């Protein structure tokens, strides 16, 4: 693989290309990016900055917003701001890992299927189609029933559920690219399948795959929230945003901050990620071209 690493030296420097990419962002893109960065830093640094942890309870139950409790308190009198920020770790972290796994594995398998012969392609596609046929919540229930609920388990479950979708999408793109003359030229040169996959096909499907990655992130967040709402996700006392909504469902009748805050957090993250996707440079360029 030595030859592959040397050819990588001709790639443009990553820093400059990222700067030019960001300069294409519209206002909505920047707003989305700011919210995503906010939640990411909340997940990483938030708990360290808080004056109290979400574990400390004992105050008034379902207290309204006040100077002491910026987002009120939950059904056990714990500080809601601390709970939401600690929950960000689970929601953002688990969803991020699961999405990376799903899209990464899906893309690699898709590239392999597209660049290989039709037997491998057919075998892989049918196997993953079978996975798609299982309802996602049902599958998650089975996994939790079989292996118990833990963070690694959740990541793997969500990754398996969303991998076939990423595979389908990437394969559809890769098959088209694979039929182009430059791939044929690479093959007549005697290139191996791995080179064709990574250097001829992947760069030309990366744009749409990134957009798909963002979309998949949103799905995973929603799946995790749904699982936690059912009590199958993150287990108490730890809580992701979905569990926070379920725990504090009692405050719904009073429109309490303790149920609204985690719901708003889920909504803001998913919308923000979509805003970023919509402003990805490849997509903006395509729409400009179409206009």
């Amino acid at each position, binding site marked *: 693989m030595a030859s592959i690493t040397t050819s990588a030296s001709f790639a443009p420097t990553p820093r400059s290309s990222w700067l030019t990419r960001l300069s294409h962002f519209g206002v909505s893109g920047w707003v989305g990016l700011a919210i995503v960065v906010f939640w990411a830093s909340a997940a990483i640094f938030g708990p360290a900055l808080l004056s109290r942890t979400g574990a400390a309870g004992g105050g008034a139950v379902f207290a309204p917003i006040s100077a002491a409790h910026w987002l009120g308190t939950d059904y056990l009198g714990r500080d809601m701001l601390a709970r939401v920020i600690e929950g960000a770790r689970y929601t953002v972290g688990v969803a991020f890992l699961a999405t990376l796994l799903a899209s990464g594995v899906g893309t690699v398998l898709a590239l392999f299927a597209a660049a290989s012969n039709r037997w491998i392609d057919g075998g892989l596609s049918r196997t993953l189609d079978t996975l798609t046929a299982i309802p996602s919540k049902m599958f998650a229930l089975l996994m939790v029933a079989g292996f118990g609920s833990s963070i690694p388990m959740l990541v793997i479950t969500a990754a398996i559920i969303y991998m076939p979708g990423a595979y389908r999408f990437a394969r559809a793109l890769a098959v088209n690219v694979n039929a182009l003359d430059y791939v044929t030229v690479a093959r007549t*040169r005697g290139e191996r399948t791995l080179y064709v996959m990574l250097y001829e096909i992947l760069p*030309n499907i990366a744009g749409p795959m990134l957009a798909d990655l963002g979309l998949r992130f949103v799905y995973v967040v929603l799946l995790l929230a749904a699982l936690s709402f059912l009590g199958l996700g993150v287990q108490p006392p730890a809580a992701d945003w979905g569990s926070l909504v379920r725990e504090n469902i009692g405050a719904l009748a009073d429109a309490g901050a303790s149920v609204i805050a985690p719901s708003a957090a889920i909504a803001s993250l998913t919308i923000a990620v979509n805003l970023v996707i919509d402003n990805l440079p490849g997509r903006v360029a395509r729409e400009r071209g179409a206009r």
Partner: protein
Amino acid sequence: MGSPVVVDNLTVRAGGATLVDALSFTIRPGEVLALIGESGSGKTTTALALMGYARRGCRITSGSVRIDDVDVLSLAPRQLRALRGRTVAYVAQSAAASFDPSRTILDQVVEPACLHGTLPRGEAELKAIALFRELALPEPETIGQRYPHQVSGGQLQRLMAAMALITDPAVVILDEPTTALDVTTQVEVLRAFRRVIRERQVTGVYVSHDLAVVAQMADHILVLRDGRMRELAATEPILVAPQNEYTKSLLAAARPAPRVVAEAPDTDVLLRVRGLSAGYGPRTRQGTASTMILEDIDLELKRGQSIGVIGESGSGKTTLARVVAGLLAPCSGTVEFDGRPVKPTLEQRTREELRRIQIVFQSADTALNPSHTIERILARPLQFYKGLQGDALRARIDELLDLVKLPRNLAQRLPGGLSGGQKQRVNLARALAAEPDLILCDEVTSALDTVVAAAVLDLMADLRRALGVSYLFISHDLHTVRAVCDEIVVMRHGRKLAQVARADYERGPHHPYYEELARAVPELRRGWLDELDRRASAVAA
């Protein structure tokens, strides 16, 4: 009877760029004006402006277009809609892309008449059938019942002309109507077009980059470059005594002179193909494919020689190249390279064998990876076959760019930033990087303008002289093949019909199909098509 068209000071802009710059010309009623130039010269933009239409992002900024007494550019959108398809009709380059695949042909051909209310549906259908007959379409009564994919490209192009003529327009705009067709089909379509245009005395605008075609169709020729008029004169004077330098270069490119390469006497045979059959689809028990493309091909190519393979689309010429390159395993027969039989598939061939045969594809747009820089595209074969690195690699890339006459600073660009001709040069340079013995050239100049194509042919002849490479040159254009090849192999329906050596190009008698192909190439003089017609009718009588 057609209407006069007067264009005065027409200017079209897109953003900061001027696409058409202060163009003025007049077409007398019933005459045909040809707009000629390379791609990007603004000829289609001008033609569209005659209908008061500017493509997205373009704006007609000044000037006037008068058809009869109507100032087209000052019309309201409603009036423009009444004008288009009624007074001015347009025949686009790709009829296949212009027909709706889900509706029958007749349904679409009568549409302009129904839309503009010139004829009731029943009469329009009768008129369409009359037009089909006039355009020499087969089975005029029933061809309209078919769907667009059920007729050939040449027929579809004529059907589109029928659609344009059904409202009896005063002006017809033909935008490269035969560019996508084979030579033999092109002749039929040109004949049909010319007859209807003459009989109806409509005013015509014929957009093309092919001077020889234009010479048969037009009364006047307007030469465009970069949106400016270079020359405007009657057809005869332009062909005989062009005034403008650019017109002269167009004329020179349209008559490709043979690029003679002193042939090395009796070198050894580099490529020998014997009894080759190949096809696509699952194999039957007898070892033949379900769809056979090539049958029993024999071919011999000597070292340093250049052989042209010609035939219309579907004749199997590209499949031949794919078999030699190892992309398709033959069903029977052998391919010998440099005295040794080569393995049928890519996987079985050694890297050294692969290096010695390189393939160059027709469309440089799809042959270069759009996300790799030129440097990286050229570097890969050098690293792959020779293991070059660092300074040696960079030096070799510079050499290659010099060899194909491209500036060295192009190396950092992506293919998207190059012109068609430049891309095709990079395409060639990549093949040369492997230092092959044989280059398979699949229609390498078909997608290029005449002038650019001529430059690429020159380059290929130079390279052959300098490096001693051999070419298997696949094309449907007899002119190009004659210009660069020592021998011509004529193929039809997957069989080799004839092989003609350079010395015998002008001497007959040849295989009738070769004669037919040779006759079908438009000659750069007026009246060529008339002579062809006369000869055809003499044979018929």
